[in-house]
């Protein structure tokens, strides 16, 4: 069973601090690595994604760092705000008979203290 391992399970950060969430994957054939953000009572929504031909992608306060040799990628949230409090999921493609499916990590619950 293909897996995506995410850590930490939960994270508490002071307002203005940096939040870092890590993810490890197994299959080297993957070519798309997204992070999804989920608020209570809502479905996950794409936050930021990276393809493995680059080592870093930045969008506003959110940055993905990608380490292909280590099969790891991480999400950095700079200047964390209380509104960032949510659950974050990394995901990676896995193969199925029809092509690709998206496998999610277990999630990281982030709480930003005001």
């Amino acid at each position, binding site marked *: 069973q293909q897996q995506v391992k995410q850590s930490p399970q939960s994270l508490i950060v002071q307002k203005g601090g940096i939040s870092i969430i890590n993810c490890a994957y197994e299959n080297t054939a993957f070519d798309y690595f997204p992070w999804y953000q989920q608020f209570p009572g*809502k*479905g*996950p929504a794409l936050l930021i994604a990276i393809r493995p031909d680059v080592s870093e992608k930045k969008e506003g306060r959110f940055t993905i760092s990608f380490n292909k040799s280590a099969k790891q990628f991480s999400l950095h949230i700079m200047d964390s705000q209380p509104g960032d409090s949510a659950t974050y999921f990394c995901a990676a493609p896995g193969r*199925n*008979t029809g*092509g690709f*499916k*998206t496998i999610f990590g277990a*999630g990281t619950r982030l709480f930003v203290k005001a």
Partner: protein
Amino acid sequence: EAGVAQSPRYKIIEKRQSVAFWCNPISGHATLYWYQQILGQGPKLLIQFQNNGVVDDSQLPKDRFSAERLKGVDSTLKIQPAKLEDSAVYLCASSFFSSGRKNTGELFFGEGSRLTVL
């Protein structure tokens, strides 16, 4: 652009009863997914459709779960009979395309249907 629509938002049933969830994906999205999200866990893929064909149902408990996507648009997920461990949020998602050679990206999720089995 309208998002992924799901109904009902909430459902409470007794064990051994049946329940059905409905999903209407974003117009033009060929790929539709049903995920199960148990409290405190990440979404787990139950079934993936490409148009009206099933491409992955390897984790669907077929003795009690069934799903269909008539005409390649709307989809229904049914549970019969329900067990206590089926209590979860059932998320429907769609994507524009998921080819055999390359993952083309973003999944768009609905708000989910929360099932409580008593």
